[in-house]
């Protein structure tokens, strides 16, 4: 019976988790599977706007990595453009690098992508408005859970006292022998 209940519980949790994941899943791009894997000719043209010094600048590379890690790859599932090998991600990384090289701040580069794709492009939603729920809910659930456990433990430990007290209504809790 316990095994059966465990199975039902596992299935239930699995279903709920899948539903939540499905509701939050990023959009699946339209058939990028057949995309050409390499188009070196295009890339040469794109990277042409960066000077040799900028291409090899470790600080610029580091900043590019930081920003690219926060931007969602539009043609992947839950990957940043830093981690994705897709062509569009590589092109987006180039745009990030060029904008940083032109003097834009990391936030300005992110704002550029938000203005094109919406906040969806950020892997981590910005903590404002409705998004605050995502940040607040786990904390509230942990606090609520802790409160619930404390309440339960209190009730369990108080139970013998209540039974003992019911034997003699005139005695107070202090008088009950340990």
């Amino acid at each position, binding site marked *: 019976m316990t095994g059966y209940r465990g199975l039902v519980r596992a299935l239930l949790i699995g279903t709920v988790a899948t539903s939540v994941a*499905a*509701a939050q899943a990023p*959009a699946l791009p339209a*058939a990028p599977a057949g995309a050409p894997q390499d188009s070196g000719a*295009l*890339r040469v043209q794109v990277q042409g706007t960066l000077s040799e010094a900028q291409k090899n600048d470790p600080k610029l590379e580091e900043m590019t990595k930081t920003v690219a890690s926060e931007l969602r790859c*539009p043609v992947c599932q839950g990957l940043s453009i830093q981690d994705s090998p897709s062509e*569009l991600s590589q092109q987006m990384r180039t745009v990030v690098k060029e904008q940083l090289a032109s003097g834009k701040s990391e936030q300005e580069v992110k704002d550029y992508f938000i203005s094109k794709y*919406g906040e969806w492009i950020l892997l981590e939603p910005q903590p404002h408005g409705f998004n605050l729920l995502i940040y607040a809910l786990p904390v509230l659930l942990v606090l609520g859970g802790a409160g619930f456990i404390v309440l339960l433990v209190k009730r369990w430990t108080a139970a013998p006292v209540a039974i003992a007290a019911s034997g003699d209504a005139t005695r107070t809790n202090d008088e009950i022998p340990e």
Partner: protein
Amino acid sequence: MNWKRALIASATAAPVIGLLAWGMTRDPNNILSPLPGREAPAFQLAVFAPGQGELQRPMGDTVRLASLRGKVVVLNFWASWCLACRDEHQVLSIVAQSYAGQPVQFLGVLYNDVPDKGRAWIAEMGGQSYPSVDDPGARAAIDYGLYGVPETFFLDVNGKVAYKHTGPVSAGVLRIKIDSLMAAGAAAPAKGDSVTGDSAKAVKAGTGR
């Protein structure tokens, strides 16, 4: 008390069920573009497939968005490797032809593909009435917040994005959108006479990264 437990359980379950139900009403594949209502990102891209007849543009000609002010622009991002693009190709070509001589500009934009393959694809599909431009490095695609092909953008006579269509577009959608944008354009003609001045500004804004 059983009713008390039932009440607590319901109060706990209701928000979770509500959240899941709300999730079911949303299509995760449908990402709302922030572009409609805003100035369309400027571009200057070279023609690699000239189109046919009246809609033809010379090969290698640079198309600047700013020079299309006063026209309804239908911007269709496509690629030769995109299967869904095959479904809409003929519809786009026929509808574009039917608007020849009117203030409507159809423009194909090649996305992550090479022009030779694009031209071969057009020939295989039996030609394309309107011109297509190449987008090296997907610059215009990123500027338009593209996340797949085909995607079609409808721009009004003032150069603002009016509507974005994801996936193969139908003749009905094309006609409804174009007609309504043409009607709106006729009621309130394009602002500003100095197309050249606007164009220079717009191009600078679009490429100034």
